């Protein structure tokens, strides 16, 4: 599954998060494979 599709599936806005796969920051076209660890970091803060 591509990161872009994963975010859409989770109803997350691409502008509001960054995605790290196995410790590496990735772009939304990256395909996530079974066994890889995905971390979604929210970037928005209330300030």
């Amino acid at each position, binding site marked *: 599954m591509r990161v872009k599709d994963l975010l859409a599936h989770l109803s997350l*806005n*691409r*502008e*509001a*998060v*960054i995605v*790290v796969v196995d410790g*590496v*920051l*990735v*772009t*939304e*076209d990256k395909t996530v494979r079974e066994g890889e660890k995905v971390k979604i*970091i929210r*970037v*928005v*803060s*209330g*300030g």
Partner: protein
Amino acid sequence: MRCKRCGRDANVHIRAHNIALCAEDFLSFLERRVSETTRKYGLISKGQRALVCVSGGKDSLSLWYILNNIGIEADGFHIHLGIGAYSDKSLSKVEQMAERLARKVHVTFLQKTLGQGIAELAKRLKRQTCSLCGTLKRYLMNRVAIEKDYDVLVLGHNLDDEASALLGNILYWRKEYLWRKHISLEGIEGHLAKKVKPLFLISEREMASYAFLRGIDYVTDECPYAAGAKTLLYKELLNRVEEESPGTKIRFVMGYLAQAGRDGEKRERQFCKLCGYPSYAERCVVCRILERFGTGRPVAFEVYPRTG
């Protein structure tokens, strides 16, 4: 996606700029933009003493790091707001960065000066916590810059902060605030320190990417009093538009800057009779708070790291 500069695997895609970059090229791309903004808008001149206001969040800590990395030596200023573990954690992240940069940070504790934290104080004064926090921060930032002889206060507001504040001011037509936002606010000798915002044109997502790639350890918890704040709603709305139409936020803010330069009015300033800082009344709000709640201990700025 490939890096537009070197062809390696890209790590960051910035749709507003229609560019994908690898980690290394993204870091230099962002630092160069901060450097160019600083020069273009005359934010910090060579030889000026700069003080970065650091909360412990990603933007201000990254900004502090960037400035020192692009040759602008800057110290830090942090306010411990007395919000339990959240404030202690924030201070520890700030101290950590001070050590990493080998720069000092001035720290002031509300608890020591006023005998209570921000939330307790807001309750007793029957004021909204965020609004009182803003008032106290402005006063303390100004005071530390003037007392410690810094030429310019540097704030970590990013593009999303500015765009959301602007949207809020327009939605409610708060004309009294509308034209006051700028990338650089000039100071008045002895009364008001100059304030600048080098991240004005850099999005929150870019800043989070930068902090991650530089391994900057910041406070990820939201301030407990920011929950439900309108800012978050406006940011979400703007991001929904941005997702459909990349570049909207930057066009919104750039358009404002062009307009503000043309339409911005020069305001008549009044100063507090006690502290000399800007005020609408004879005595400013903070001087009145200090008189009522002051513990008798002077407003102090302690220097961290304590060793070295």
